[in-house]
């Protein structure tokens, strides 16, 4: 089966389970969002998929291949990861950072980027709107700009599987939409995209599947309309909300209750 298939992942630390019995499938050509409050286990689960965290049970397969059993070098050519925040003490330019995405393809003694490397990196920086920043030093950028550079780096790996942890958390709305548009294009071109998101409406707008987590367990898994229900929001996030459906589609829209009033669609406001 193509795409990412995760079965029964369990990650333990300090005597307790950070993630338990996690199973879901992220289809190729689609975008899958991991939802859940802080501490739900989204980052841990992503780490387990990448082989960065030790698992006591479960398996991870991508296009039928056991992802965790691959050599790091082979895995890097298949799968790219964008962290929530990436800081470095090194003096690297934006282009240098993006060029890191080509490391899996470069030879040991290759001391300079090849023509292909240059072309791919230029294209990725352009896609993220970061071409003008190419010679700027990475650590002088804002959080949002750094996130976009990291994404350019990930795309430069030309991965079939893209994993992203809160890739839009520091971006303004325009940049968020641009980034999600880009990811969707990549997905439609054949990649598998899995990303952790906080914004439920954006998740519903862009993603084909939503996977909701709470306290290390997956509590819902399916298309946005099926997953986003007031009951789930209460259970997972502890918030009261009304779910509207955009007329003419099955796209759900989450409207949160304010502390002082419940949202009522009949009132004007």
């Amino acid at each position, binding site marked *: 089966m193509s795409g990412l298939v995760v079965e029964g992942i369990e990650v333990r630390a300090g005597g307790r389970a950070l993630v338990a019995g996690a199973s879901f499938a992220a289809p190729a050509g689609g975008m899958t969002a991991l939802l859940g409050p802080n501490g739900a286990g989204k980052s841990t689960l992503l780490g387990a998929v*990448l082989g960065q965290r030790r698992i006591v049970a479960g398996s991870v397969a991508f296009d039928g291949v056991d992802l965790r059993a691959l050599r*790091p070098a082979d895995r890097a050519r298949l799968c790219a990861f964008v962290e929530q925040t990436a800081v470095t*003490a090194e003096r*690297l330019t934006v282009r240098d950072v993006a060029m*890191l995405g080509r490391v899996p393809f470069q030879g040991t003694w*290759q001391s300079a980027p090849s023509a292909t490397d240059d072309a791919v990196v230029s294209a990725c920086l352009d896609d993220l709107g970061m071409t003008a920043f190419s010679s700027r030093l990475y650590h002088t950028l804002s959080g949002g700009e750094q996130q976009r550079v990291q994404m350019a780096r990930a795309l430069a790996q030309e991965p079939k599987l893209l994993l992203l942890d809160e890739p839009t958390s520091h971006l303004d709305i325009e940049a968020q939409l641009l980034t999600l548009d880009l990811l969707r294009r990549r997905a439609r071109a054949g990649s598998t995209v899995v990303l952790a998101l906080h914004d439920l409406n954006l998740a519903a707008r862009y993603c084909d599947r939503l996977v909701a987590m709470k306290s290390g367990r997956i509590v819902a898994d399916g298309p946005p309309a099926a997953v986003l229900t007031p009951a789930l929001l209460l259970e997972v996030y502890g918030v009261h909300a009304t779910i509207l459906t955009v007329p003419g589609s099955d796209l759900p829209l989450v409207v949160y209750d304010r502390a002082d009033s419940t949202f009522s669609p009949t009132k004007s406001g």
Partner: protein
Amino acid sequence: MARSSRLTAYLALWGLLLVSVVAAVVFGPADIAPLDAWTAIFHHLGLVAENPLPLMRDSIIWDLRLPRVLSALGMGAALALAGTVMQVMTRNPLADPYLLGLSSGAALGAVLFLLAGAALLMPIGAFLGSLGALALALSVAHLLGGATPSRAILAGICIAALASAATSLLIFWSATGGSYREILSWLMGSLGGAGWADTGMVALGLLLCAPVILASGRGLDAFAFGDDAAASLGIDIVRLRWTLLAATALLTGVMVAIGGAIGFVGLVVPHAVRLVVGSRHRLLLPMSMLVGAIFMLWTDTAARTLFDPRELPVGIVTALIGAPAFLLILLRYRRIT
């Protein structure tokens, strides 16, 4: 850096290195004409039939100055390389080759051997001492819950302090007369009396360790954002880390055994080169070696000629130059940032 400017930079550095070697051999307390000096060297190399120098002066050039100059080159390259690696491995810009207790351990080993009467075997004592300290530091890091960079540094500081205290105790307890001077000169770092055997050791150390380290340039680049990021770029971080640590420790151990704890080269040279070249390690590592070699060559030449007929330990000169240089570099960093 564009390809053409990279090539120019390499050519310039190699050129400067060669010119430096030619010049450094000519300097020294004994008054020997430059042309004679080099003719004598070529004679030893079998390129010239007649040796223009009489026996003693020839010995000064061939047995003293030339091996010392070459030792300085190799040592500077090795220390700069080791320093660069330590700075990126521990993600700490203040790291130097001696961070994991290597120099304190070596000092302890050397002093033990010296006070036991085996002054000529000090290099072996130093080498054993540095490896011993490293093993201890890694064990302690493991005890703290696994050898991560910050734990390794902490453990190294701890072991270094221990070794220093032990060394001070030994010195205070047993040193007499002349041995104070020997120990001090060793602690400061000195290439005094370096002969062909020392040059051979330096070359061997470099030959064994430098290629391994240079080959990890790709991996070091990937380390910029930490272990996990490097792993996701396909680097086997555990293997890389242990390989680099072993190679760096071995290299530093050999250098410390021969020259003592020569400071500032491994700290300052990587920063200086980074200011020009940036953090691309496939470029930074070889360039640091070249710059380190040239730097050490000149500081050692100064140490052995400036106060003729006295000889200073080279570590004093590297400190005198290195400390203000480091300050300048820090100021430039601030302005750029």
